[in-house]
């Protein structure tokens, strides 16, 4: 009994020690700092300019990316009906689709060599799975999905936005600006920085950021989804009273 407990505690301590020890990859880049530290979606939210700072070995290229959790996504495929009208025809289920994928580099990613390839937006074509194909075999689903997400501003690859400052000793600080689009949904997102030298990854670090509704949008969104009938009645009543008020004000000014 005691021996078991001691062995268990021993393993626990060992596990804590292992977790606390810096792993060799992250030794090359220290912790990332984010500003703002959370995405607050209030009444005036219109996307946010996220600043990510950290340090990398001197002379390294930097890739910074913000990704959302990968999920299954239900889609519709467009096709011609009666050979004339474009409408949604087939059902498509794609798997392992990150909700958001924003990546930028200190220089264009294709110039950084082989090590940068897995971080490129195009690499998603290989990782996104298709569980259910639509009716048209000619449509390249992962490719079209990338374009759909790019159009919404949720997927982006850019060669700008990451700047390196002068070297101090063996390391060098970087600052990345990520434009987070307003269409981003509330949830948890991951921010990563990857250091590359001569086409190989030499360091990596990551942190998390949460996006959450707050204030009036939060209240309204909860009301609309949880007490939807009440919400509908409230919307109607407020509209009637606004209409009456506007009608009365305008008529007193200008009698017919």
């Amino acid at each position, binding site marked *: 009994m005691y021996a078991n407990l001691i062995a268990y505690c021993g393993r626990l301590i060992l596990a804590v020690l292992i977790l606390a020890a810096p792993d060799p990859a992250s030794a090359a880049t220290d912790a990332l700092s984010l500003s703002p530290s959370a995405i607050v979606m209030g009444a005036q939210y*219109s996307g946010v300019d996220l600043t990510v700072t950290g340090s990398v070995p001197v002379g390294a290229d930097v890739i910074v990316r913000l990704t959302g959790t990968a999920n299954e996504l239900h889609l519709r495929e467009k096709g011609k009906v009666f050979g004339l009208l474009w409408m949604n025809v087939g059902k498509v289920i794609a798997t392992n689709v990150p909700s958001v994928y924003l990546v930028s580099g200190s220089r264009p990613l294709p110039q950084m060599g082989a090590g940068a390839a897995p971080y490129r937006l195009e690499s998603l074509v290989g990782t996104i799975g298709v569980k259910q194909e639509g009716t048209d075999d000619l449509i390249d689903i992962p490719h079209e999905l990338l374009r759909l997400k790019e159009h919404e501003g949720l997927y982006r690859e850019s060669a700008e936005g990451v700047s390196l400052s002068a070297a101090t000793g063996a390391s060098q600080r970087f600052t990345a600006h990520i434009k987070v689009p307003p269409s981003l949904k509330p949830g948890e997102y991951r921010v990563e920085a990857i250091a590359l030298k001569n086409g190989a990854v030499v360091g990596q670090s990551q942190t998390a950021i949460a996006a959450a509704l707050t204030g009036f949008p939060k209240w309204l969104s909860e009301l609309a989804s949880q007490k939807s009938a009440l919400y509908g009645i409230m919307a109607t009543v407020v509209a009637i009273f606004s209409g009456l008020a506007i009608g009365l004000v305008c008529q007193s000014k200008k009698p017919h």
Partner: protein
Amino acid sequence: MSLSMNLYLPIAGASVNCLAIFGLGGVVGLLSGIFGVGGGFLMTPLLIMLGIPPTVAAASDSNQIVGASTSGTLAHFRQGNVDIKMGLLLLIGGVAGGTLGVQIIALLRRMGNADFLISVTYVLMLGFVGGYMFLESLQAMRKTARRTSDEAPPKESLYAKTIRLMPFQVDFRRSGIQLSVLMPFLLGALVGILSAIMGVGGGFIMVPVMVYLLRMPMHVVVGTSLFQILFTCMNVTVMQAAKNHTVDFVLALLLLLGSALGAQAGAKIGKKLGGEHLKILLASLVLIVMVKMLYDLLARPDILLTYAGGH
């Protein structure tokens, strides 16, 4: 934060510029004040163009029309231009039709065709109403140009005979007509379905229906139409909110403020312009919106995938 005009709409999931939405409400309100139509048929496509999802645009527009038609009904009621009996019958039909329309939309959303149906209904209705109005006002302008004084007495058509032979004939005193109660009920239901699908008050369909099919006098048509639209849109708003979660109340309120003010200015401008020219202008506007929507249906979409509807 400084005076930012951006507003985040959590239901639509979009950030919009307050002034743009207020201005859109104002422009559509101005047009509706000039031309005497509800303006919903213009509002929804314009909202879609601004990036609001079609189902949210249609439902929020219904919400907006509740407010706009309240003030209109109030004004017409004071002038005695509301045929309550006719309005209530159209309303009962409209509520039945609207409820059915919301169910249809919910079903189609699950099947993924809701947005397509909204577009097709728009194209057909805009084309029909725009085309009819254009031809009618063109004929009226030719007539006044020729100054023909001899007008043939209207012959009793097959349609008129059918109406007279329908059961449950009732006297509508305010409108000065006699009709079967089934007529307003069925026509009300038809307009109700269309208005739920399209997110419009149904005014631009209801007014021609009352003028050409129910043969009511024009001044009573406008007041009764607004009275009926008010209740139909109340029903549609509550149903859409409860079933589909597509009513964005903030969006609706912004549009309402803009359109109410625009309508007041429009009414003043409308009085200074000539009637038939106004009709042709409106018809052209309606047809332009129709052509744009038709183009979207016929041209190959840029991206061949879209999100599946429903939450």
